[in-house]
């Protein structure tokens, strides 16, 4: 039933051949087609601009007050591209291989190869727009090695690559807005998908200022609405990032793929108290020069936690540089999932530091000795400043404390090679889809994927569908629009009638704790089963006891949050089901029952080399699992080893 539409032929020629085989829309006809783009982060802004340039009528939506504020803005580290400007042996094939391997062999070969292939065009495009990437004295672009990659293929813009790339895409979008080819709706939240005869034909939105519920029709709908990491409440995502658009589309027939694949980033500033509203990422690049350690013994760690001694009082012999010890060849640069899990293990052994014991050290003392403080400051000064601003500690003098935090979601709406979901005419781009990162994403690859989808994939693939359905206008008076609008209004009224005793934020925090505990860095069947009951109880309680104040016809943050948290709760249950079904460990999904004797993730390729795509079957009904077998013709599956 699931048809991934992967083109036939040799890997390196699939995309070229496919582009040739896709149907084209006659230039004179393009303006007869309306396309809705929901979300204007990297994926959405690049798609909206590119499609408008082609001549389509684009309506773009975001809940922010400006497209420039999308969560993409916060990306720090960089963006990969197989340019091989360093002459260090990089190639499209190597980027493809690294991404497949890094994803622990749970991604589609054809998609990943295409991603690597178009990566080179992205950098050209961004530079042409005026994106100020880091340069060398000769005036050419600089690169760095990132996230343990063996080649230098990461392009960056100080510590704010995301902002600069987004401003590039936003400028392209602005040009089209000015030309009248894109109509931009800001502070508008998509609350439902309208389907007619099973095809996506529009959306229902709420104006976040006036509360007006509107319907919009189109020939195709693109969801570029980002990831769902905030299901954990605490994450490095922006506060408003949420799953609502994707989840409501899921309930209209779009399958959700691999929801349990979430990425926990090893270098974040630890939680400081219950008031904590979000977590701050410290760029992965810190691991290039910082050494990760905890005290060797529980007794020493205990003294640290009580504040009786300080990190620098601990003798070299009493420190455990656990990543260097366990993984001598990669050391502190092991992939994110491995680094995170090992930090957790140390803290579970009661050797964690900081008041809470939920932290490990990231120590720059050796680098400062070797390179001198100014050199370290030149590399990481802004990160050190950010750290001291938040923690009030000086990382030049005492080691940073770090702990893993939720960062990215590899799972998302299932899409075929054309980025179309299981609902014809509905597409998903960027972090909102599941496509390219398998069970673990490599650093600097999300920005690449979002822009690849928006600039270089969707402009080709959407035309094929549009040419098939033809340019006849969508009937905006079709009863499906009024019916879906009514459902949205009813749901809002139900939320507004909740006058219980517990705030929506409290439910969100409870949900987050539960998912983090049982469906976070490591999982067991027993824990997941327990979590399923807990989340169901939480859901029942939410609909009885939540507090939503105010009315619909105004700015109402309680109402906005209630809708998003209700969807997170439902998603949380599906994540648990997905994690329970996957009786293996792979990438970010670590099931304690399945590990090698050395404690590494143990895949089961015979039984689990598939994408799990879940179909919604009705409220409070178990979802149905569909499996898309992953076929590897170009890489040999092997146990990842970073020893």
């Amino acid at each position, binding site marked *: 039933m699931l048809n991934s539409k992967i083109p036939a032929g040799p890997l390196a020629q699939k995309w070229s051949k496919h582009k040739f085989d896709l149907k084209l829309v006659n230039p004179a006809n393009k303006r007869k087609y309306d396309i809705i783009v929901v979300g204007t982060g990297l994926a959405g802004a690049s798609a909206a601009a590119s499609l408008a340039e082609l001549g389509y009528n684009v309506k773009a939506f975001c809940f922010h007050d400006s497209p420039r504020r999308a969560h993409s803005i916060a990306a720090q580290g960089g963006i990969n591209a197989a340019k091989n400007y360093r002459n260090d042996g990089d190639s499209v094939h190597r980027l493809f291989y690294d991404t497949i391997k890094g994803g622990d062999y749970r991604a589609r070969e054809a998609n990943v190869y295409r991603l690597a292939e178009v990566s080179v065009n992205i950098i050209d495009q961004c530079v042409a727009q005026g994106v100020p990437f880091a340069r060398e004295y000769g005036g050419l672009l600089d690169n760095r090695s990132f996230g343990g990659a063996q080649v230098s293929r990461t392009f960056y813009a100080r510590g704010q690559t*995301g902002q600069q790339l987004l401003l590039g895409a936003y400028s392209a979008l602005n040009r089209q807005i000015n030309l009248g080819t894109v109509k931009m709706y800001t502070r508008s939240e998509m609350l439902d998908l309208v389907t007619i005869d099973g095809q996506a034909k529009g959306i229902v939105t709420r104006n976040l200022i006036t509360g007006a519920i509107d319907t919009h029709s189109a020939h195709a709908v693109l969801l570029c609405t980002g990831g769902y990491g905030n299901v954990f409440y605490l994450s490095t995502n922006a506060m408003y990032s949420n799953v609502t658009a994707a989840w409501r589309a899921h309930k209209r027939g779009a399958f959700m793929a691999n929801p349990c694949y979430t990425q926990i980033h090893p270098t974040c500033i630890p939680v400081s108290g219950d008031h904590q509203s979000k977590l701050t990422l410290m760029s992965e690049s810190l691991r290039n020069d910082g050494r990760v350690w905890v005290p060797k013994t529980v007794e020493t760690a205990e003294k640290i936690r009580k504040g009786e001694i300080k990190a620098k009082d601990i003798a070299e012999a009493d420190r455990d540089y656990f990543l260097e010890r366990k993984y001598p060849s990669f050391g502190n640069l092991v992939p994110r999932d491995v680094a995170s899990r090992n930090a957790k293990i140390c803290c579970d052994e009661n050797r964690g530091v900081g008041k809470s014991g939920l932290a490990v050290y990231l120590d720059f003392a050796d680098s400062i000795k070797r390179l001198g403080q100014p050199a370290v400051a030149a590399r990481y000064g802004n990160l050190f400043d950010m750290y001291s601003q938040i923690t009030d500690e000086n990382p030049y003098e005492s080691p940073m404390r770090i702990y893993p935090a939720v960062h990215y979601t590899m799972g998302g709406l299932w899409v075929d090679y054309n980025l179309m979901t299981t609902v014809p005419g509905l597409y998903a781009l960027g972090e909102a889809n599941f496509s390219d990162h398998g069970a673990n994403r490599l650093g600097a690859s999300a920005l690449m994927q979002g822009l690849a989808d928006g600039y270089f994939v969707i402009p080709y693939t959407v035309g094929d569908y549009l040419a098939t359905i033809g340019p006849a206008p969508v009937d905006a008076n079709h009863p499906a629009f009024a019916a879906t609008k009514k459902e949205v209004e009813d749901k809002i009224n139900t939320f507004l009638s909740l006058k219980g005793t517990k705030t929506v934020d409290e439910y969100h925090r409870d949900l987050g704790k539960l998912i983090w505990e049982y469906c976070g860095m490591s999982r067991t069947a027993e824990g997941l089963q327990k979590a399923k009951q807990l989340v169901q109880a939480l859901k029942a309680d939410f609909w009885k006891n939540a507090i939503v104040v105010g009315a619909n016809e105004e700015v109402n943050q309680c109402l906005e949050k209630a809708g998003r948290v209700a969807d997170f709760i439902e998603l949380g249950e599906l994540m648990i089901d997905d994690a329970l079904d996957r009786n293996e460990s792979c990438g970010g999904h670590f099931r304690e029952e399945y590990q090698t004797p050395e404690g590494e993730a143990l895949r089961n390729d015979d039984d689990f080399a598939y994408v799990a795509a879940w179909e919604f079957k009705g409220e409070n009904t178990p979802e149905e699992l569909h499996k898309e077998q992953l076929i590897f013709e170009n890489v040999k599956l092997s146990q990842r080893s970073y020893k």
Partner: protein
Amino acid sequence: MSGNMNLTLKVWRQKNSKATGKFVTYKTDDISPDMSFLEMLDVVNEGLVKKQEEPIQFDHDCREGICGSCALMINGQPHGPKKATTTCQLHMRSFNTGDTIVIEPWRSVAFPVVKDLAVDRSSLDRIQHAGGYVSVGTGGVPDANEIAIPKTIADEAFNSATCIQCGACVAACKNASAMLFVSAKVSQYALLPQGQTERYERAIAMVNQMDTEGFGGCTNTYQCEAECPKEIKVTNIARMNREYFNAEFLKDKKA
């Protein structure tokens, strides 16, 4: 974990853009110095919701000083007392227990209040619609390394490009001028080779839109630079003025 800082907050409450607003006083006694300013407001809001009262509206999202959403006038200072710091990165340890803190929205005709502390800054977007881009379409562009840019120029352009579109410069200015913001945008493109072709049309279009939106003129008091969380320099304003005059000059010549 809550803390033990006592604070009196005087917060601007305004139902919507048409309503008249007023200051409302809130007392809190469980604030930790480790909280960020916005987390302090979260605590107050949670308390209000528990009492079935409407929480205070304010814009925020990344809470990392990069999206430019947060925008509070704290004791008369945009983004509060700390230099080069956005509201979301300000921590309560910058205040003392017993303090009274006055919290207002940005005030400018070009930034109408949406609700409470949230304002409408779409005027800044419209200025960029008017010309804040290089007119290149997707595809068909040269290889990235065919455009060599001297590092000094690239770094200078980058400094201008770090603006987060928060609008503090406008809020800080007695004339509510948006010159610092607009000049940062104009400068980025004026400095880079990619921006040269449309250099002068861009300056005119953006400046004209800025005037249309109702922002005031610049009288060189430079409060904007002092309050900008990203330390955008007023040298950008001088550069934009040059761009604009050159552009007008060229336009006259053509005419």
